[in-house]
């Protein structure tokens, strides 16, 4: 019974990941990134659950990878959520605003993803459940050319794999 339930949960999580956030958090060009919070009840342990009830991303200051207290609080919730759903593996994608060069920003995005990963690992999440990737400035959440958009784009986004 328990195994069946876990299997069903994993399936729901996989479906949610495919239909919702996978494209936004991948180098693939298929589909549009949909990151808006889902409506209705999200399946526990799913991508939608992570986005709606935990918080899938943390934000950074310009050119920084320091985790603010707000970012740490989000990652604390992610760590607790990952402890509750031990079958879930995640990928953390680091992103940058477009106020840096293309190549430097790949490394800066990696540094941000790495900071979030290290924090989760320090909170007890197994390192082999977390992969990281960086999109530099190529996968902006907000597409405006203003301070507000740049602040949204300096992030590390955790997504269910």
């Amino acid at each position: 019974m328990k195994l069946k339930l876990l299997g069903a949960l994993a399936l729901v999580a996989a479906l949610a990941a495919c239909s919702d956030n996978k494209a936004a958090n991948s180098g693939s060009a298929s589909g549009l990134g949909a990151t808006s919070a889902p409506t209705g009840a999200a399946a526990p342990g799913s991508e939608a659950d992570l986005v709606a009830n935990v918080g899938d991303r943390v934000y950074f200051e310009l050119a920084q990878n320091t985790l603010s207290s707000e970012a740490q609080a989000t990652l604390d919730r992610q760590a607790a959520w990952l402890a509750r759903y031990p079958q879930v593996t995640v990928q953390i994608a680091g992103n940058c605003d477009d106020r840096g060069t293309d190549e430097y920003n790949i490394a800066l995005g990696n540094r941000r993803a790495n900071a979030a990963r290290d924090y989760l690992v320090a909170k007890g999440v197994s390192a082999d459940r977390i992969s990281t990737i960086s999109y530099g400035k190529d996968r902006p959440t907000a597409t405006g050319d203003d301070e507000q958009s740049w602040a949204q784009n300096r992030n590390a986004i955790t997504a269910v794999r």
Partner: protein
Amino acid sequence: MSIISASGDGLTRRRLVGGALAGGILATPLAAFGQNAPGGFPGAAPAAPAPDAPGGAEITVDQARTAPIPIAIPSFGPGIGDQMTQVISNDLAGCGLFRPLGAAASAGGPGVPDFAAYKSMGAQALAAGTTSGSGAGVRVEFRLWNVLTGQQLQGTAYSTSGANWRRIAHIIADVIYERMLGDKGYFDTRICYVATSGPRSHETTRLAIMDQDGANNRVLTGGEWLVKTPRFHPTRDEIAFMSYANDRPRVYLFDLNSGRQQVLGEFAGISFAPRFSPDGSSVVMSATRGGGSDIYTVSLGGGTPRQLTDSGAIDTSPCYSPDGSQIVFNSDRGGSPQLYVMGAGGGGARRISYGSGTYGSPVWSPRGDLIAFIRIGSGGFAIGVMAPDGTGERILTRGFSVDSPTFCPNGRVLAYARRGAGASSSLGQIDIAGFNERSVPTPGGAEAPAWSPLKG
């Protein structure tokens, strides 16, 4: 992934005077009319100075920047002759160093031109040509004259397929550039870049390649994965670039003739920012490790990557000096992204950028005398150049966002990507003296240009 092969005309070494050219183009010298060729044997082209000899130039590049050379280019004849004349004129006018005289009439008929007529038009040089034949057997005869002295500077006949007309036109423009200015031309070259389309939050990116003037644009990859930063091999028809294929961002080698792709080097982290060594035997690149990235060289022959930096900070955007002895790179080891130069074996890194703001995307000129870079300050982005020791910094152009400077083979012009606020990215060019800035046409959005070596 669908791949369209970029093979067309093959690439082998090109010679200025005489001999077989690539892609079935045969070049033979043309006798000067009514002149005994220096060197004594009639029927040969006048002994041209060695291409690299600056003494052979009619005018210096510095002179031509302030006073572009007036050159008459009467039509090479109907059909492809007209089209070739247009391409040659566009190349020469586009570089900013020549002033083609619009619709110059042919004066004097066949044989020795009527120099007095060209002189009264204000022409200093005359590029005259004829085309004959059709299909697979086209012959283009081209002569370059100094109008003031009446001396034939160059005479060459090209035998080729009519399909090569555009390439012959670029080759002729290169000959004119070299004879008049003493520097090799760069018109018979291509630009590889990343073509972008779709919403900015999730742009579709494809490698694309075109002639330097925007003609013959072809797409090389299918757009399934994010691709970045193509870079030309110095002699072979190969490109190093970064692909996010299978969500594993790595540096790949792309064979333009076969379309074959292969990962370069084995890295646990993300590998990116590739550039070939000047001898083409290896690629220098960076790879992430922890929160930083290190610089490595990867031999094309295989083997373990050789690590050149170990700062713990971000070290990236490496680029060799043209003699292969040094590497300029971008690092935030001092707290913010700045430019550093180190020996090609690693070690001895010294900072060379000291202006306000941050620096990135360094690229060493093929002439060796300059490093181009991006500088980012509160006012936006700028492209500049400085000497390899960091002195003599000059800003060439500014913008909301500019990136990816790339030198043409003779080091006189930079191509780059530009994006204005709220706009998509496009390509531009600017002379390293900071003048003649212009856009390069592409069918859609364009980023990360890489200028090829001369086709050879």
